[in-house]
């Protein structure tokens, strides 16, 4: 057997991203088993991992993890390219945009809880936007906005606290960033 001539060197960052993404995908899949009263309102447990990666390794890796999660979790759940996939993708993109700005907030005053709540608001804005433009082209969808906003505050706070807890209880980062 001839050896492949193309080499894809795997960096430490690649391994790290893959591990975090795997954890995030597992959480997303587990979460899909929780019955929910309203479509669109869910805890978004996979985002805990995004927050941890953002705090430890920066925005670029957090974006990788979040997007890998959206694609892989939808494949696992059989939602790939279904409406739910596009809702999650637009939500993830907008919340990553929000996080890109939120990460520059002073660390002393704003922790993962702030990041989480802001990202959760970004998430539901992205979903509402796609839903309004494409899935339910009627203003009736805005009737649900207060419910989504409340869910964003509650789940955002809880996810942020969990992320902060994980950050405080995980060993200090060993591998130098590369």
């Amino acid at each position: 057997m001839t050896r492949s001539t193309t080499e894809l060197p795997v960096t430490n960052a690649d391994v790290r991203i893959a591990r975090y993404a795997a954890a995030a995908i597992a959480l997303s899949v587990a979460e899909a088993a929780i019955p929910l009263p309203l479509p669109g309102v869910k805890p978004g447990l996979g985002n805990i991992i995004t927050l941890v990666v953002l705090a430890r390794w920066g925005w670029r890796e957090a974006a990788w993890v979040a997007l890998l999660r959206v694609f892989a979790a939808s494949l696992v759940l059989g939602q790939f390219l279904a409406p739910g996939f596009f809702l999650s993708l637009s939500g993830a993109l907008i919340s990553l945009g929000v996080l890109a700005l939120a990460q520059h907030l002073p660390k002393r005053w704003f922790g993962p809880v702030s990041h989480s709540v802001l990202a959760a608001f970004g998430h539901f804005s992205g979903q509402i936007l796609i839903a309004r433009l494409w899935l339910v082209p009627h203003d009736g969808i805005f009737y649900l906005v207060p419910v989504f906003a409340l869910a964003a505050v509650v789940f955002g706070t809880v996810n942020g606290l969990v992320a902060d807890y994980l950050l405080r209880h995980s060993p200090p980062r060993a591998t130098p960033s590369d």
Partner: protein
Amino acid sequence: MKLAWHEWRAGFRPGDILVIGGGLAACVFFALTFWQGGVARWAEVRAGGKVVARLSLDRPASVDVDGPLGQTRVQVEPGRARVLSDPGPRQYCVLQGWLSRAGAVAICAPNEVSLRLLGDSSAYDTLNY
């Protein structure tokens, strides 16, 4: 693993409380903005099928409308309206009392007068039974 409350509380930084407070304020704002659909803003009075008066529900007012049987009096107060008196034999529209929801209707059929409350946008075009 036991999770003590103080462990969780350590996750909050001063700015976080601000962000959560802002989030809750946004919820209240959204609720007030998007859940106002059922609130009536206008009272529309018709006689013989034609609109004869459109009164804002912001301030008290009353209007007298003439029909085939006589005069129907409609009274408006902030946020609600009613048919105060009507010459019709059965008085259904008067007995309905105050109307306060958008879309509510009181019809005085014998005198061909109707009172209808309108919101900012109508909840439906027609109803049939």
